[in-house]
């Protein structure tokens, strides 16, 4: 279709007359939608898989208890296999969902003016009559909403799949842990913004971000088990913040770590803003 013939794309024209903020949200959504939708599929798949697997895992565990009484279970095994909330906490909130969520959140934060400079579109964006702060704020807002939505969808998937296998699941437990996962995700998202604002190149920010997350989960975490940690190190433990306690009470919320993590996230966003507004493109 060429020229001024009516086209579906032009229905968008009418809407975008709503104003610059609407247009900037639209642009930020366009930039991140493939990552977000991929993340949505991954989160749903992981949550559905581990939830629907529960009856099978329990049957396996019970069979193993009978057939192999000599096997020594890890200390957490009994609680995980006798309490559904603890099972979800152990396999999802403390492990698979947490890892995937942090990676997705960091990747959602990658982009912005630095990447546009690599793509050659920074001139197009910076010529618009909007401040760099506004540009970054629109990206940050859309990204934060996407992180929140991913957490909500994870919660919803677990609730729906729990119903499907006819197990009652505490909404309080689900909301509390989804909230902690989202809080950790926001820290990761802020790290993504910071890395994008400081590391130059098209793919370098992604590589740096994934290296940091990989180091956190696969290099440092396995060796940190049982190591006595000071209050400060504990507070800086993002993995611990995202896990929280296995229950659903206020005592299961790592308040100090949460406060420290969110403060660091705020500082990261602040520095990302500062860096983006002060550098040349």
């Amino acid at each position, binding site marked *: 279709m060429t020229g001024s013939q009516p086209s579906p794309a032009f229905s968008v*024209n009418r809407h975008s007359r709503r104003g*610059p903020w609407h247009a900037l949200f639209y642009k930020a959504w366009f930039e991140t939608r493939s990552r977000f939708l991929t993340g949505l599929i991954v989160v749903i798949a992981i949550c559905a898989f581990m939830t629907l697997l529960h009856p099978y895992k329990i049957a396996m565990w019970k069979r193993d208890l009978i057939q192999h009484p000599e096997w020594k279970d890890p200390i957490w095994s009994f609680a995980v296999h006798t309490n559904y909330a603890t099972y979800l906490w152990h396999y999802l909130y403390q492990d698979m969902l947490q890892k995937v969520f942090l990676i997705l959140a960091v990747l959602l934060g990658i982009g912005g003016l630095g990447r546009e400079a690599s793509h050659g579109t920074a001139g197009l964006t910076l010529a618009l009559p909007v*401040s760099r702060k506004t540009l970054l704020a629109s990206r940050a807002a859309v990204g934060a909403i996407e992180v929140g939505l991913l957490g909500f969808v994870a919660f919803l998937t677990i609730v729906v799949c729990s119903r499907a296998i006819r197990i009652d699941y505490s909404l309080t437990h689900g909301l509390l842990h989804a909230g902690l996962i989202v809080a950790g995700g926001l820290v990761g998202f802020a790290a993504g913004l910071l890395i994008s604002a400081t590391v130059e190149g098209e793919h370098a920010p992604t590589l740096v971000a994934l290296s940091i997350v990989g180091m956190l989960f696969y290099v440092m975490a396995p060796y940190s088990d049982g190591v006595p940690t000071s209050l400060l190190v504990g507070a800086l433990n993002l993995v611990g913040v995202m896990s929280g306690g296995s229950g659903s009470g206020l005592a299961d919320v790592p308040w100090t770590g949460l406060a420290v993590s969110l403060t660091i996230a705020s500082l990261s966003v602040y520095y990302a803003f500062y860096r983006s507004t002060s550098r040349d493109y």
Partner: protein
Amino acid sequence: MMFPCVIETDKLSKSYGSFEAVRELSLLVEKGSITGFLGQNGAGKSTTIKMLLGMMRPSHGGGRVLGHDIADPKASLAMRQRIAYVAEDKRLYDYMTVGQLIAFTKAFYPTWREDVEKELLEEFRLPVDRVTKKLSKGMRTQTALLLAFSKGAELLVLDEPSEGLDPVIAERVLQLTVRAAADGASVFFSSHQIAEVEQIADRVLMIDRGRLVLDTSLDAVREKFRRIRAVYEHPESVDLRSLAGARRVHIDGRVLSVIASENVDAIAARLHETQGTAIEVLPVTLKEVLLDSIGTGK
């Protein structure tokens, strides 16, 4: 008569470490004019434009665009509301269709010209439903120009606007540029096509190695600039340095040639006094003036 200026810079400079990309550039662009901004690749044209638009901070010096201080982010914001800019590489958001990109851009400009948008969409035959990453380079350029001309801007800053276009469309772009100026806009454009500059520009600014080496009107080039040639036994012995208007002297065998921007009669008289023979005063083209200016920015 002095016209108000849409662009004025005062010793505008940009350095990267010890490398000076733009050196003490002081220039004026008059309101309502079409000004060609010329220079070789790497001369500092794009860096200058980026500083004017607030994308880069000057290392020294400053400037004003449409009366707004280029170093003040708030002023730069107000200035960009009144400017249309087409970047050199014409890269567009490759995840948007042409239609979506138009929709996105018009949201920022209350002065958007729907009539111009419609006219250019029809004329350029742009596929509104196609994502821009699948456009040819020529179509990308046309899309970028459509966005620029439709903004209803007071100042058009065009970096190589006709690059990648076929001759017919390139000619049309020049006509549109002239029409925009006739409608009251000022145009500041860079180009490698000297013929284009000659065709539409009122003034020419040229930078070489970051320094302004030529600032003149096209009328002055046509009316005042001349090449004066003379034949000598020993042309190396002729010294014209003290004469005003003698921009550069070339010696080719026994022929001494001077490009003069003024004072032509006095220079010709000096050649005559210094035993020059077969003295000729010839008109010069813009191309000759520009080529003559290259290398003077050291």
